[in-house]
C-alpha cells in the first residue's frame, strides 16, 4: 500500500511550469556564470543527473539495487577513448560517438543481466558488485585500455573561455532526455510492470508479467544511458585511468543521490544529483581533504537511511499531503454529519457522523 502511494505523490510536486523554469535556468547557467570552475561543476553535475536518473530507471523502478552501474559507465568511457583514437576523430565529431558508446554498454548489459537477474535481493546486489570488480580488473590488465598507465583523450582546441559549453549542452540534452524518458516509462505499461515486479515479483509473474524480459529491458535501457554519460564524462576530463573510470565511489554516489531525493520517483534522483554532486566537487577542491568527502558521504548516507529512508521528496510530499488531508478531514465529516442530521432518518449514522466530526475538530 505504501508502495502505491509512493509512486503517485511526487508528480504533484512537478508542475509543468516549474519544469520549464528549471530547464530555462539550466540553459542560461553557463551564459551567466562564465567562470570555468562553475561550468566545470555544471558539466559533471549534469552527467550525474543523467546517471542517477538512469540508475533509478532500472533500480528505483524495479527494486533490483545495482551497485555495478560503473561497469556501463566505464565501458562507454573506454569505448569513446579507444574509438576516438582509432578513428582519428576530434572536436565536435567525437560527440557522435556517444550513442555508439551507449550501444556498447547496452550490449554488455545483456549477458550481465541474464546472469544477475536470475537471483534476487542481496545476491543480486553482490553479483553486481562482483561484475564491477571484474570490469575494474580487466581495465587494469587489458592492452586495449592501456592498463594501469591509462589513456589520454585528445583535447579539442576550443576557446578556453567557452571551452566547457559544448560539453555542458550535450550533458543537458542527455539529462533532460533521460528525465523525460523516466516520466514516459513511469506512465507506460512497461513502467507499471516494473513497479509490479518491485512490489511482488512472484505475484506480478502470476498476473502475467513476463518478468525476465521486462527487467532485462529496463537494465539495458539504463545501461545505454549510463554508457553515453560515461563517454561524455571521459571526453570532458580527457583522461582514463582504471581506478577512476571504474570507481566504487561512483556506484555509491549514484545510489545515494537516488535515495537522497527519493528512490523510484522521477524528480528524486535529479534533486539528489543537483545537491550532492556540486557538494562533493567542492569538497574535492579543498586541499588535503580527500578523505573528507568520503566521511561526509558516509555520514550523509546514514542520516538519509536512518531518518529519511524514503528520501527528501516523498517525505516532504507526505508531510504536505497530510496537512492537506487534515484540512480535508475537517470538512468532509462535517458535511456527512450535516447530511445525516438533515436526513434525520439513520439513527446509527448520525452519532457516527458527529463523532467523526468531533474528533476531526
Amino acid at each position, binding site marked *: 500500500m*505504501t*508502495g502505491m502511494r509512493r509512486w503517485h505523490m511526487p508528480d504533484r510536486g512537478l508542475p509543468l511550469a516549474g519544469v520549464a523554469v528549471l530547464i530555462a535556468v539550466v540553459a542560461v547557467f553557463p551564459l551567466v556564470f562564465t567562470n570555468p570552475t562553475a561550468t566545470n561543476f555544471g558539466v559533471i553535475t549534469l552527467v550525474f543527473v543523467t546517471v542517477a536518473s538512469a540508475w533509478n530507471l532500472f533500480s528505483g523502478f524495479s527494486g533490483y*539495487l545495482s551497485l555495478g552501474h560503473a561497469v556501463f559507465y566505464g565501458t562507454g568511457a573506454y569505448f569513446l577513448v579507444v574509438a576516438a583514437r582509432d578513428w582519428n576523430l576530434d572536436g565536435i565529431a567525437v560527440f557522435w560517438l556517444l550513442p555508439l558508446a551507449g550501444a556498447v554498454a547496452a550490449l554488455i548489459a545483456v549477458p550481465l543481466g541474464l*546472469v544477475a537477474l*536470475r*537471483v*534476487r*535481493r*542481496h*545476491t543480486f*546486489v*553482490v*553479483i553486481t*558488485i*562482483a*561484475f564491477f*570488480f*571484474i570490469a575494474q*580488473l*580487466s581495465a*587494469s*590488465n587489458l592492452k586495449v585500455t592501456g592498463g594501469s598507465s591509462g589513456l589520454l583523450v585528445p583535447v579539442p582546441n576550443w576557446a578556453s573561455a567557452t571551452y566547457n559549453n559544448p560539453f555542458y549542452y550535450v550533458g543537458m540534452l542527455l539529462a533532460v532526455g533521460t528525465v523525460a524518458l523516466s516520466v514516459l516509462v513511469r506512465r507506460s505499461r512497461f513502467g507499471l510492470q516494473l513497479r509490479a515486479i518491485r512490489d*511482488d*515479483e*512472484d505475484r506480478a509473474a502470476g498476473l502475467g508479467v513476463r518478468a525476465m524480459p521486462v527487467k532485462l529491458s529496463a537494465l539495458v535501457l539504463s545501461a545505454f544511458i549510463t554508457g553515453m554519460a560515461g563517454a561524455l564524462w571521459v571526453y570532458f576530463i580527457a583522461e582514463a585511468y582504471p581506478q577512476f573510470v571504474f570507481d*566504487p*565511489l561512483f556506484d*555509491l554516489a549514484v*545510489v545515494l543521490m537516488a*535515495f537522497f531525493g527519493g528512490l523510484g520517483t522521477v524528480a528524486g534522483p535529479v534533486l539528489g544529483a543537483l545537491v550532492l554532486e556540486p557538494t562533493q566537487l567542492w569538497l574535492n577542491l579543498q586541499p588535503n581533504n*580527500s*578523505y*573528507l568527502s*568520503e*566521511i561526509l*558521504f*558516509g*555520514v550523509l*548516507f*546514514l542520516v538519509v*537511511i*536512518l531518518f529519511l*529512508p524514503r528520501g527528501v521528496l516523498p517525505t516532504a510530499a507526505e508531510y504536505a499531503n497530510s496537512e492537506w488531508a487534515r484540512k480535508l478531514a475537517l470538512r468532509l465529516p462535517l458535511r456527512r454529519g450535516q447530511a445525516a442530521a438533515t436526513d434525520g432518518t439513520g439513527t446509527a449514522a448520525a452519532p457516527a457522523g458527529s463523532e467523526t466530526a468531533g474528533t476531526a475538530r
Partner: protein
Amino acid sequence: MASEISQAIAAGILGGCVYALMAAGLTLIFGVLDIINVAQGILVVLGAYLSYVLSVHLHLDLLVGLLITVPAMFIIGVAIYWLFIRPLRGAERTSMTLLACFAVALIIEGVLYREFGANYVSLSAWYTTATVHIFDFYLADIYLIGFGLAVVAVAALYFILYRTTFGRAVRATMQNQVAARLIGIDVNRVSAVTFGIGTAVTAIGGMVYGAISGGFTPNSGYDLISRLLAIVILAGMGSIGGALVAAVFMTTVEAVVDIWQPDWSVAVFYLAMVIILTFRPTGLFGRRAARAQ
C-alpha cells in the same frame, strides 16, 4: 615447477583458512540478521591497523595484541549493530541495511586515510620473517600461526553455536525469528552479540592478513570484501561449513593460477561465482533459497 605448485597449494590452504574465518563471520551475520555486512572488508583492515598501532607504538607482540583487538572489534561490531542496523525496519530493510553497512565502510575508510594516509604498511614480528622447511619448500611461520589461529577461532565459533545456550538461541533465530521471539529469545540481544562475534573475527583475520599480504592501505578493504562476498555467495549464504570449504578451495586455486597469470588470478574468484550461480542460484551449500523474496 612441482615445488612451486606444492608451495602454492600449501600457502593457499593455510591462507584460505584465514579467509574462511573472515567469511564465517560474514555468513554468520547473514544467517542470523539477514543482512550482508559489506563493511566486513574494511573491518578486517581496521583490525590490521589496530594491530599495527599496538605493535608500533606500544611494542606489543602481534599475538598478545589480539587480546586487545578482538574485544575492541567485538565492541565496534555491537555498536555498529545497535546504532545503524537495529533501527532499520520495514519492507526496505534488506537494501537499507546493506547500504548502511556500505556507509559505515566509507566512514571507516575515510578515518583510516585521515589517520594513516595512503601508504602501504605491513605487520612484522619475528615469525613473519622466519621460515619453516616443509617437504621441499619454505613457508613463513606466520602462515602456520594464522592457520592455527583460524582453526582455533572456527572451533570456538562452532562450540559457541552448538554447545551453549546462547548458540541454541542463535540457531533458533537463524531458523525462524518470529518463533524465536515467541519462545522468549531476546532477538535484539542475540543479533547484537552475533554481529559482535562476526566482527570480532576480523581482528584475527586482519592481523594475519596484515602480516601475509605484504602490505595494506585503507583501500585494501575493497579487495577483501570482493573476495569474501564471492566466497559466501559461492558457498551459499548462511552456510558456515560451506564458507570454510569454499574459502580454502578458492584461495588454493587462486594461488596456483597466480604462478602463471599473476594479473588475472583474482578473476578466478568472480568467474567461479558467476558460473556457479548461473547453474545453481542458491550456491553450492545454500540452504536458504536465494531467489525467495
